[in-house]
């Protein structure tokens, strides 16, 4: 890590630490009841007490999110490719996708329960449904964003459709596909949680429902904390893949001028 990145990380950590300290202090000073807002120490204690239980539920949610997300990536990129490569299909597929996107997925989740039962599968489907759209839209716009001169060069060399697709379109699209994936992964978590809210007996979403019913606010906070952690880790993983796969896109070294938005 460079000294600038280190400095930035330090600043962030200090700010977070200050916020947690203020939260703890306020809870103690004002004697806020734990069922309203638990102090951070209580949340940590709760996390520690039943850590193996939380680990299982966290793992379930990670599994649902990742499976839904990966399905969305696979189907999303293939759909985007079809839309771009076969323009005649675009006029039919795009409006259909838009309509599908306008259907609120939360409203569909109970139906999935009827169709697919209480297992993990309906949760994966909800995660997939909400993550799918940004990948298609970003993928299609990325695949269409090739420099026109490159396409001219390709046709001048009589490149095949296949060559044009793999040599020009896919690499040009990668930056946009990755920004689509970053949006999609955060949505996929929300999808998995919605699925768990609606029905089931596993996952962090289920844990939050149980905590609410028992007025165990510390437990709910613990679950929310773990959820956020899952989100951050998955997001960071995608950013890491982005850096590895498209090193030409963003400078790998942080700008020395500083002041760049995180």
């Amino acid at each position, binding site marked *: 890590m460079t000294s600038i990145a280190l400095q930035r990380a330090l600043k962030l950590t200090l700010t977070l630490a200050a916020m947690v300290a203020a939260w703890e202090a306020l809870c103690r000073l004002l004697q806020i009841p734990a069922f309203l807002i638990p102090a951070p120490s209580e949340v940590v204690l709760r996390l520690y007490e039943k850590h193996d239980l939380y680990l299982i539920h966290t793992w379930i949610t990670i599994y649902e999110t990742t499976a839904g997300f990966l399905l969305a990536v696979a189907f999303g990129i293939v759909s985007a490719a079809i839309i771009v490569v076969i323009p005649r299909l675009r006029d039919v597929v795009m409006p259909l996708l838009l309509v599908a996107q306008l259907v609120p997925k939360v409203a569909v989740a109970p139906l999935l329960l009827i169709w697919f039962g209480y297992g993990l599968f309906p949760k994966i489907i909800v995660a997939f449904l909400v993550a799918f759209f940004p990948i298609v839209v970003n993928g299609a716009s990325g695949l269409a964003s090739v420099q026109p001169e490159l396409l001219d060069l390709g*046709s001048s*060399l009589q490149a095949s459709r296949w060559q044009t697709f793999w040599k020009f379109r896919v*690499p040009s699209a990668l930056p946009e596909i990755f920004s689509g994936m970053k949006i999609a992964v955060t949505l996929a978590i929300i999808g998995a949680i919605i699925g768990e809210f609606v029905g089931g007996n596993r996952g962090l979403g289920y844990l939050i429902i149980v905590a609410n019913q028992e007025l165990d606010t510390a437990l709910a906070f613990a679950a929310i904390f773990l959820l956020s952690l899952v989100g951050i880790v998955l997001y960071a993983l995608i950013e890491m893949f982005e850096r590895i796969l498209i090193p030409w896109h963003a400078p790998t070294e942080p700008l020395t001028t500083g002041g760049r938005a995180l």
Partner: protein
Amino acid sequence: MKARAAAIEVADLYKTYTTADSKIPALDGVSFRIDPGEFVSVLGPSGCGKTTVLRIVAGLTAKTSGVVEVDGVPVTGPQRKIGLVFQVPALMQWRTALQNVLLPAEILGLDRAGSRMRARELLNLVGLAEFSSRYPRELSGGMQQRVAIARALAHDPAILLLDEPFSALDMMTRNQLNIELLRIWSERRKSSLLITHSIPEAIFLSDRIVVLGPRPARILDVVPVPLPRPREPSVRLSLDFLRIVDRIGRLVGLEYV
């Protein structure tokens, strides 16, 4: 009977763009000829349709009527015997300079080891031997355009088509690249068609200059450039050079004197 086929033969070329509610004439009976190994420029004001000429010769745009032949063969579509350089470098950002130059060989399925050697030679020819593993964003605009020229030569095309390749560059870089292009052309002797709106650039590089008028483009005159080759950069200060500048200037409505 001609002794050999022209590298490029354009006769009575018409092009009309048809939109939903109107017809826009772009080329109005353009004719010229480029012999093998010749360097010819098409010069005209912005938006007069000179790029359309190049695109039709390249087989990327369909003509409305007229004759367009490359190597004696009528142009019906894209042809691999042509190397293209655009106004923008149009390099693939995800590939190094060398990998960019290798693209045509990959698409044509040429032998790998041989094309790598040729690509290195070409980067050497355009003066970028030390930059072969750099990415485009690490190169200046002028260097990127040099890579584009090397790429255009990579599959050893018979003909080089250059579409205002230096118009996005600053004057100093442009001057430099004019000199470079002249040297590259002298070494490879590709039959070349340059589209430009710079009078000195056209004169410095060409054997003949096809001067087009404003849209729809008609040929105002074909001006020969009798300056001896090899040409030194200083030729641009000679009286003969300036006389041609003046002649073309009068044709296009610029008075220098």
